């Protein structure tokens, strides 16, 4: 499955627009985790656990999107957008990660 943020695929012929595919993942409000990352911020360390959580959530969002594209018999996703939205929480740590794009079917030129 090819993923691209561009409008087209180089050296490939778009055969069909299959539809919209989306994937979402949420890192939820968890006061214990939030406080811990807050402490790390104060002492100046990198909140590596938080980075891992974000990466994990992004992978879930992308995987969910890819599964939906496969369901539509597509073999690529173009116009891909990934956004990280802060949705509050105890220390602003509730983050929604969304990935969406247009599923297409392409053929080699």
């Amino acid at each position: 499955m090819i993923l691209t943020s561009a409008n087209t695929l180089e050296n490939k012929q778009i055969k069909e627009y299959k539809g919209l595919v989306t994937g979402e993942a949420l890192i939820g409000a968890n006061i214990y985790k939030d406080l811990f990352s807050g402490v790390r911020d104060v002492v100046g360390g990198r909140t590596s656990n938080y980075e891992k959580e974000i990466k994990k959530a992004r992978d879930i969002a992308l995987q969910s999107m890819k599964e939906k594209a496969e369901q539509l018999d597509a073999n690529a996703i173009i116009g891909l957008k990934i956004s990280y939205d802060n949705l509050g929480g105890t220390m602003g740590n509730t983050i929604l990660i969304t990935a969406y794009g247009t599923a297409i079917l392409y053929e080699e030129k």
Partner: protein
Amino acid sequence: MKIDKERMANSQKAFNSIVLGTAAGLLTYYAFLYYNIAIFGWNLGLIFAPLVAGYVETIIAQKIIGESIGAISAFILFLVTVVYGFIIANPTLGYNVITFGSIIIIIQAAIPTFINYFGLVVIISMFSYLTGFFKKLTDTIDNKIRKLLGKEERPVEIILPYDDEESNKKINSLDFAFITSNNPKIIEYDNIGYFYTTAIFERNTHLLHISPENVEKKHLNELKKGKDECLIKLSEEIKNAGGNGVIDLEINYILNGLGGSSFQIIASGMAVYIKVESLTS
């Protein structure tokens, strides 16, 4: 400057009154301990020492400042007598619930309004607000009563994962093309105009939850549902305007409302009329 000097002098006098009151209280307590003036093993110094401290302090303060300063030394004596009488001099009591309960009751006697307000209003309200404990408790009691009365129990909230597959089918079977690219290739289209739709729903703003996972799942479900609603609404509005697709589609999620009390989802893009046969080449 004159006022400041007066204030400083008064503060110094007040401090002296407290020190003298505390000293009188400590002497009294020492005397009660030395002569072991007790009833059923309970030393009366626990009552009289703070009383003497407060009385001496008030008398001195009234003489040198002209007003009472609130018997602070009585409170100091309460703490001293409690710590000494309950913990140091009586180690058999140990650090147990009864000792700490007694300490709380004595402090409560010294400053009742503050302790009552803090204990009953602030702590319990915070606990209830943060955890939703009382809501859960009253729901359980309500269900038990309903069961006893032979009525049907209220359903317990079970959060099922959102059906992504079904959602995907629904969105892509609207006879409508959602395209995220801003300049899609191969298709031919006419522009109609910029359209946007929005959905708002409430967020659980409690800091602590009995089950944070459930709140997380519920929020994610609501966000997905809101997104589907927005997309369906967008397709309907564009169809009404004579279109059959949208390009440069954007989906945004915003925290909104007082103190971030709601989520807002916005779907927007350029409405177009696409020559359907051009969607496939």
